């Protein structure tokens, strides 16, 4: 696989901008060479009027959808595919509903998998929102459900959510969890 293609793939899958040093390391190329490849890729996207753009932001590089695609993407959010709440998002919603306010880290801990993109999607859908930040390193944001969530679920208040009677986890697990929930 040629360098350009590898670079394109990396900038496509990444969830946050990638610093040029990291690109150089992964591609095993000097930084100058990577910069040339980046410039060429960016120019290529422009010249063939691609729907994607390469941008430098947040100390690194990443592909983004073209600003002119906005009306299409807005329409896309109404499509069944975009509106479908995936199993992962549904799980995140359930965790936030019953453990709010809860941070990304705590959600990932409970589900056993990284949940960032599911949280983002639920935020865009207006079903969850940030509810402040925890003290401590990094000041992680905590999330809660929104009034829209209650409306869409068909309940009037959080107190109306059915209690979690079944499946009480073993005592040690509860303790371990509470440990991770203790802020600070």
């Amino acid at each position, binding site marked *: 696989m040629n360098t350009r293609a590898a670079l394109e*793939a990396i900038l*496509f*899958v990444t*969830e946050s901008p990638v610093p040029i040093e990291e690109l150089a390391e992964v591609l095993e190329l000097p930084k100058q060479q990577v910069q040339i490849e980046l410039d060429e890729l960016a120019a290529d996207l422009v010249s063939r009027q691609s729907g994607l753009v390469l941008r430098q932001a947040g100390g690194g590089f990443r592909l*983004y*959808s073209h*600003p002119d*695609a*906005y009306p299409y*993407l*807005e329409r896309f*959010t*109404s499509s069944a595919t*975009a*509106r*479908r*709440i995936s199993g992962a998002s*549904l*799980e995140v*919603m*359930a*965790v936030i*509903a*019953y453990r709010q306010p809860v941070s990304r880290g705590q959600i990932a801990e*409970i*589900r*056993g*998998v990284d949940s960032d*993109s599911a949280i*983002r*999607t639920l935020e*865009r*859908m*207006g*079903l969850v929102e940030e509810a402040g930040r925890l003290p401590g390193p990094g000041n992680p944001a905590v999330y809660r459900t929104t009034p*829209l*969530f209650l409306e*869409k*679920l*068909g*309940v009037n208040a959080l107190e*109306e*959510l*059915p*209690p*979690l*009677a*079944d*499946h*009480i*986890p*073993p005592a*040690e*697990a*509860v303790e371990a*969890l509470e440990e991770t929930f203790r802020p600070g």
Partner: protein
Amino acid sequence: PPPTTHHSWILMTYHVSTAAFEGPLDLLLQLINRHQVDIAAVSLTDLVSEYLSYLDELMEMDLDVTSEFLLIAATLIQLKAHRLLPPGTEIDLDEELALMEERDRLLSRLLMCVTFKDVAAVFLRRWQEANRLVPRMSGLDQEIRFNPPDVVIPVGPAQLAGLASRIFARVGADPDLDHLDLDLPSVEAAIQELRSRIGASIEATFDDLVSHCQRSVEVAAYFLALLEMARWGLLEVHQEHWLAPIMIKHRSAPTEIDLR
């Protein structure tokens, strides 16, 4: 003899070399497979005695021996006993029919099990292919919010509560590492490596042997390798007390005769 070009069919796609088996049907299939060089019947007598000896071993190790294990054992023993009857023995027709029924049930379960194992191998190939194709997971990257009327929560309050209960229950459940890419080191590779590293007349501590390991799973692999090699008589393992270093001594050839 017929050419033995093709492999045994039962576990065509599953190569199992150790005693790791999942449940009684799996054990039975592995035993059949081990005996089957070509497509030919396996000796029932051998099969039954092997199955029973595994069962003994499991009970000795105090492992969870389910009623399934015992049920299948009972059927096997009955089948074998039947074969050993001298010709002309009076047989009870009801018993005979019941045995046939048990036998057919066992056979159809084995076939079903094999069928699903075979299709699981196809799934594995596709899974591995799909894993090399990585989709983008970050979603929308422009400030676009969903139109609230479009948003639909596909479950009701009760289902959401059920889902939450299951998720929280999972937290306390036994860890399964399936979904992680642990790149688990194989015990076999560890054995190979230990064999080459522990040349003649070397004494070492376990800590020395695993000093290069970065993860505890690697250490675990070496530890299992060590136990296995000790069992084969290739190594002597010694520990003063439970916190003391584990001392390992190479045993030259197991053929050496002690003349004392």
